[in-house]
């Protein structure tokens, strides 16, 4: 099941004035189209276009700032509905899930009826369109769901599969990208059926072990069953990244953004009750090239300043920047449950108590109500166009002046 133009559809549902209109979902600062509504797509707007370019195709385009939290929560609601039909619900991405409906449906005809019911419920309860593909394997179901958008309902029954594979170009299959397609085309392989008929040794010679998978893909076979929702793994890492509103070489700006990201990672670690000991830092330059490095620490950490200390040391190893920087990101992995007994006393305990007090205040009055002074650099650089909310009314004057300095 694939939600159609998911983020744009959610915004159109939340704000009825946007319904039936060309809408582009953008981030703050950068004016790049992250995704857009079908009305905008009809006029040639595409993901990745600058807003300027999108406006040339569609002067009436309405830019909307995306709200990822809203989309994640909506995805959870969709998954809850799916779980009413089967426990075998595998989340493929924020807007795609696989359901194994073999047990509740039994026959392809029943599957079609059940999928239609699911589609109607999502439309009725959440107001969102989706396309559903029904097939004997996950890769074929994905292919079927891509056939009709929006509101598609496509069944590939066993007897149809051969003809589907015969007329489907290889690049339509999920997982076959531009490079693989070009290599396959150079070998004279253009359709999935041709790929399925190709000698596996030829594919292995050109693609290594992936050749075996490609051969199966060409025959519509997917050996991985749909996993149960309850099998979804626990959190392995917590990370945040930020694309700057404009490229920069200024180290103080990059450091200030990094501190903000580290604070966010710390807040999430504490929320999940986790501690971690591996910090990864990554950087993307203006030409989209990038570098990353990670460091394992002697002890577990969970506060923004501790994460920042490790990430900044890694960042220093990339200095001076060889090119202007477009994006930085930080991730903490090597996670364990925080049993809360690591640092009962001393400086570390003080830092942790301070971080928890900050969490309590910020959760009550908005993210970064109390924040490091370095965030002023972020706000100045972005002209305020960053998710650092304005001061909350009702606090005593000068409250923010006592914000911690790191």
């Amino acid at each position: 099941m694939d939600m159609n133009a998911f983020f744009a559809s959610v915004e159109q549902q939340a704000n009825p004035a946007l319904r039936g209109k060309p809408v582009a979902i953008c981030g703050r600062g950068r004016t790049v189209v992250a995704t857009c509504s079908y009305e905008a797509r009809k006029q040639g707007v595409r993901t990745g276009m600058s807003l300027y370019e999108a406006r040339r195709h569609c002067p009436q385009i309405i830019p909307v700032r995306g709200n990822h939290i809203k989309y994640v929560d909506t995805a959870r609601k969709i998954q809850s509905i799916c779980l009413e039909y089967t426990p075998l619900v595998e989340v493929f991405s924020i807007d795609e899930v696989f359901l194994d409906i073999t047990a509740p449906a039994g026959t392809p005809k029943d599957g079609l009826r059940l999928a239609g019911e699911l589609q109607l419920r999502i439309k009725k309860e959440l107001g969102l369109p989706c396309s559903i593909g029904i097939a004997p394997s996950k890769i074929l179901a994905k292919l079927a769901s891509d056939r009709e958008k929006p509101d598609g309902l496509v069944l590939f029954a066993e007897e149809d599969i051969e003809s589907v594979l015969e007329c489907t170009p290889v690049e339509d299959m999920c997982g076959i990208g531009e490079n693989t397609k070009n290599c396959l085309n150079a070998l004279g392989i253009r359709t999935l059926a041709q790929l399925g008929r190709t000698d596996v040794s030829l594919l292995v010679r050109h693609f290594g072990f992936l050749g075996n998978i490609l051969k199966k893909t060409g025959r519509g076979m997917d050996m991985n069953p749909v996993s149960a929702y309850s099998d979804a793994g626990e959190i392995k890492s917590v990370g945040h990244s930020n694309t700057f509103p404009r490229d920069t070489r200024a180290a103080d700006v990059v450091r200030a953004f990094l501190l903000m990201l580290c604070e966010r990672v710390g807040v999430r670690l504490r929320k999940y009750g986790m501690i971690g000991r591996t910090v990864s830092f990554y950087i993307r330059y203006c030409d989209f090239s990038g570098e990353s490095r990670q460091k394992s620490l002697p002890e577990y950490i969970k506060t923004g300043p501790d994460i920042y200390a490790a990430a900044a040391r890694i960042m220093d190893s990339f200095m001076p920047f060889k090119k202007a920087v477009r994006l930085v990101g930080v991730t903490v992995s090597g996670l364990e449950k925080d049993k809360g007994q690591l640092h009962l006393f001393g400086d570390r305990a003080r830092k942790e108590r301070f971080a928890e007090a900050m969490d309590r205040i910020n959760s009550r009055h908005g993210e970064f109500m109390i924040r490091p002074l370095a965030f002023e650099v972020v706000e100045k650089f972005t002209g305020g166009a960053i998710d650092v909310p304005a001061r909350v009314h009702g606090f005593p004057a000068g409250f923010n002046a006592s914000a911690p300095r790191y």
Partner: protein
Amino acid sequence: MGNNSGITDINEPVKVGAVFENSRIRPKWFVWKKKKYILRKITYDWVDSSRGDKHLCFSVWDGRNMYELSYSTRFFTWMLDRVHLE
């Protein structure tokens, strides 16, 4: 109803009148800058757990403009997060 090109972040505490319907909390009016806004429709709702505790968020319409309200389930406080002006 306004479109999102007129979004303004507010992030201010507000007084809200709400009712419980079918095990759910539904805002009916709010007072902001001494003016009372009667809500005609809740167009969307979602849960935000990113701020450290659970906030119930609502997109609401007063017949002229869209607003985003949030309720902290931990502190029982309401905030006006955003206004989408016509």
